[in-house]
């Protein structure tokens, strides 16, 4: 049976288009899965290792802890994951309010700025503390 091409090459209709927000959902899920591990390490190391009330570390114990290169790296990755996950989550909540495309662009820009600001402050904080040890 002969077939006639009615559609130009390369513009074939996708049979299973990506759902709206698919990339955002995937990023939220992947950072969330990473956070399960990183947050578990963070919580156990900061609240369940040291023998003190609430497992909280003293000032010098914190400096010693954060100056360990492995811990510093883990905490830095944890901060990145938690910030990205938080910004994507807040974006999801705000987009559910059905903003206009213009407002949506503002939301995206504001969350990028907030996220970068959070990362900058967080890295400044742990970097300063690690350098004091």
């Amino acid at each position, binding site marked *: 049976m002969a077939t006639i091409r009615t559609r130009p090459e390369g513009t074939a209709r996708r049979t299973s288009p990506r759902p709206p927000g698919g990339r955002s*959902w995937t990023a939220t*899920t992947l950072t*969330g*899965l990473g*956070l*399960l591990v990183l*947050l578990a390490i963070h*919580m156990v190391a900061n*609240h*369940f290792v040291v*023998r*003190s*009330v*609430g*497992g*909280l570390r*003293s*000032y*010098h114990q*914190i400096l010693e802890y954060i100056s360990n290169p492995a811990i510093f790296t883990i905490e830095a990755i944890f901060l990145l994951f*938690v*910030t990205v996950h*938080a910004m994507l*989550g*807040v974006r999801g*909540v705000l987009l*559910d*309010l*059905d903003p206009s495309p213009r407002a949506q662009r503002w939301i995206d820009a504001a969350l990028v700025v907030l996220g970068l600001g*959070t990362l900058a*402050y*967080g890295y400044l*904080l742990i970097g*300063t*503390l690690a350098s004091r040890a």
Partner: protein
Amino acid sequence: MSERPGPTGAAPGEHRDERGPVLRKGVGVPTSGWFDPRGRALGGFAFAANRVTGLGLVFYLYLHLGVLSLLLRGEGSWSDFLRIATSWAFLSLDVLLILGILYHGLNGIRVALVGSGIVADRQRALWWSLGVIGTIALVVSASHIYGSR
């Protein structure tokens, strides 16, 4: 407690066995908002609770960064904070934080498994089983935190 009628006036679940489009309270978020749990099934409650705990954790993230700023001021500021942070009331907030983390994290596992199609038809069973795991973890954590006093 009386059940509210569905969008077609029929009782909720009446059309569950019928083929056809899924009946729901309209497209997207209902006018009452996602945070209104009234008349919702377990999935709606789980979603609303996930959002509430998520927003709470975002608030805590910035609160935590603010508190950690005390470390930059030196040992004295941190020691003063520790005196407050080790009070019974403050440790209770720690337990509340762990509750939020456990709920959001375990429900996130459920959403990932269901949303990715790995366990698409076991939403309810997942919610309850992860709920049991979360409750056990919360009790262990709370007993450890309060027991450290």
